[in-house]
């Protein structure tokens, strides 16, 4: 709280500046939103799970030694079942599955988030412009969005991943570049409906430039929707990374949950009954994606009171 606000009492009403007013209003709406969010049990659960995985990813070096990832330093036997020494057993190179799982969280989450950032940036920009502008640039962008939406995701991602080469960044790029259309469409329809609102008309009449309007009026109103959509996009991005890694397109020098499942499949974990290699990575993916989805749904509820109580 700023000094000016602190002094405000009934006896001494302090006149707040426009910016301070705006800030206070925003904070109040945030608190309101948070309270609504808190009441959504599944959303809270999702948040807790996310927090847990975020902690695991960040604290990975503390939880498991990085040496455990190196093939040349593996000490365990091949595909050993869980024991007191290796809580989740070992993989086909003798490394501890638990260590792989912990460090894999980093890659899976990182790629998911990076891909989402790329996707959201492209999608929001395209959506805003095609929704707000009128004229041929908007029409072209809209057509482009529709066309991209039509191309099936996985074949395109596979081809791009093969073209660009297999690195962490490239996979994030591929996922981001193939998943922006749905975001763009959503933002576009939001923008279209906001565009009709009265105060925008007023601003335009007053001579505000297009970008100024987008920045000051459209964007803040679209941002909440963008935010909610982002969490759901992360969920999809993590699923996409896992699938691409499973198909053998991930970074071969990094361990992710998807690459663990790829190894399990290639090495015949089903035949040898090495359930500790197949089940945990999948469970982690499900938990993280589910958590993001629940949080995203709760956020949508916060933003759209009509959805309350679902």
């Amino acid at each position, binding site marked *: 709280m700023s000094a000016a606000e602190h002094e405000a009492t009934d006896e001494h009403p302090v006149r707040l500046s426009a910016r301070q007013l705006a800030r206070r209003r925003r904070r109040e709406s945030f608190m309101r939103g948070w309270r609504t969010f808190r009441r959504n049990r599944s959303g809270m659960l999702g948040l807790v799970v996310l927090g847990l995985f975020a902690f695991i990813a960040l604290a990975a070096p503390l939880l498991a030694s990085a040496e455990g990832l190196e093939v040349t330093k593996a000490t365990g036997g091949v595909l050993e079942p869980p024991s007191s020494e290796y809580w989740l057993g070992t993989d086909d*190179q*003798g490394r501890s599955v638990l260590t792989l799982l912990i460090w894999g969280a980093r890659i899976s989450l990182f790629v998911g988030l990076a891909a989402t950032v790329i996707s959201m940036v492209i999608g929001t920009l395209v959506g805003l412009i095609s929704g707000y502008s009128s004229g041929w640039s908007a029409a072209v962008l809209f057509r482009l969005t529709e066309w991209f939406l039509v191309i099936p995701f996985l074949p395109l991602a596979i081809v791009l991943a093969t073209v660009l080469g297999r690195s962490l960044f490239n996979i994030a790029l591929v996922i981001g570049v193939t998943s922006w259309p749905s975001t763009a469409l959503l933002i576009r329809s939001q923008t279209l409906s906001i565009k009709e609102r009265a105060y925008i008309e007023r601003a335009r009449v007053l001579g505000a430039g297009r970008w100024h309007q987008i920045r000051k009026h459209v964007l803040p109103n679209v941002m909440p929707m963008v935010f909610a959509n982002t969490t759901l996009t992360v969920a999809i991005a993590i699923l996409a990374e896992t699938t691409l890694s499973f198909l053998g397109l991930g970074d071969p020098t990094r361990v992710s949950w998807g690459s663990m499942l790829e190894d399990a499949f290639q090495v*015949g974990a*089903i*035949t040898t009954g090495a359930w500790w290699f197949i089940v945990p990575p999948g469970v982690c993916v499900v938990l993280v994606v589910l958590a993001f989805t629940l949080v995203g749904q709760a956020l949508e509820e916060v933003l759209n009171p009509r959805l309350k109580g679902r």
Partner: protein
Amino acid sequence: MLACLTPGIALSGAAAPANAADDTTFVVGMTNEVDSFNPFLGIEASSFESYALTYDLMVGYSMKDMSPEPALATKWSTTADGLTWTFDIRSGVKWNDGQDLTARDIAYTYTRVLDGDGAYWLPYLNGVETVTAPDDTTVVLKMKTPSSSLPLLPIPILPEHIWKDVSQDEMKSYAAEPQDGQPVVGSGPFTLVEGTAGGSTYRFEANPDYWQGAPHIDEVVIRVFKSDDPMVQALIKGEIDFAEDISPLQVKSLQDQPGVTAHNAMTPNFAEIGFNTGSIDTETGKPIGDPNPAVMDPKFRHALGYAMDLDQIIDKVYQGAGQAGDSIIPPPYFDYRWEPSADEAFTFDLDKAGQLLDEAGYTKGSDGLRTMPDGSPIGTLRLAARSDSAMDVSLNTMDYFKEWLDQLGIKAEVQAYESSKLTSVILDGTFDAFQWGWYVEPDPNTMLSYMTCGQRGDWSDSWYCNKKYDALYEQQQKETDQAKREDEVKQMQQILFEDSPYLVTAYETTGEAVRSDHFACFQPQPDPGGVWLIQYGAHNYINARPADQAGDCDGVTSAIGATEAADSGGVSTGFWVGAGIAALVLVGVGGVVMLRRRSTAGERE
């Protein structure tokens, strides 16, 4: 279709996975697809297997060591100068459409290869000028220069009366597949009755009039799987009788499986770490790419040979299935193979490696990193690995190599590429070392050719060029005296060992498993220790028989006999239980749906 899917599940007794020992159909599972049934076009292993089943060779391969033995040709001789070869062809062999197979078919097939149709087979006719059939039982090869690889001729013999209607242009896409129910015309122990390139099931029926005697099994089916695991599962359940090319882990897990015999078979494959010994533009002779000057020095490379713990690589990277490597001619070809003597051979000795590096001028600087003889830093060596190798062998081998280089004071980084990308990288010369492997044919000529100066920019991936090596190569290629030739080949291997363009890491194995309770009498090739299928020739397909008829397998003691039959009754019981449950569920769901509809109908106003 949809209507009969649902009730069908409960009724599909006929579709239960059949116990393949009830009839004599031998089902082989492979993960490799046929790319073409046309022997002039296909290059995949399963394609070659198909040719072995359906066509004959003029000269065959022995089971013991793949040396030449009679097939369509009963005997052969050559003139002292090696410029004329004469083959006596047996008579009475028929094509499966009833026509006679004569020497003319052989001459026709070889002539088409010489005319440019089957580029893959051309190297085997190296030096041949003409192939003629003066009569029905004689084939004569006239040579421009002698060729030491003769009489090894693995070219499938095709029927002239069918293939003469295929022009050279049409040949490029001629499928040679069964059409309109007509099987393909061949003379081999089996006939291709069903199958198409890119398909997943290929069916071969036994040829009862085969000149070596009818096979003991009625049908061979090759079933293509997209990955190992389902294939091994199918083997365990008895859906297939043979699983080809499985991993050592799977072989290990099958050891306790009743009714299954599995092994890691020796193959003439080797894996190597190859270096860029000097990539150049083959037209101008100017260097291209950017090889690190260190790897272009044979002394540097040879020193690194002592920095490899091959036993650990076999143990960890190959799961124990394989043998430490040295020369590019693998153990099965013991006639041609050269082995380093005890004090020449590489051992895992980092101190010795360091010593040799010091002597060559690559001493350690103050920061612990080695430098070039002139004092400049070596920099980081780029180790190119294939990201698509089985069991990640390529990546893991390079990981270990990087670590040993690190211990020597040389920095390195592993770069992963797809195989097709790596080919470009190699041809562009933008690498320092790579990891790959070769399959070596019974005649060493082809493998030796890959290290000649002339193959740079083509098949030579190490860009190696040594005049002395090339001279020996020319010589052995024309050598008519077998003993002299073996000696020349051995000398060449010695040169390669000293110059070390390759550091051979391992002789690889391939995993195989067979339902020995269903079928028996598979002889390894080479014998002992080799593979049971995907061999040179169709020997095992002819001799394999149902396990209960094995007897002594015609006196071949190394062939697989029969073990106790597996209990497959449980499969059928389980199937009916599951089918019953499925039926109940469907009835339940259907019933609920019906009930709802009825109640809604009752509510209609």
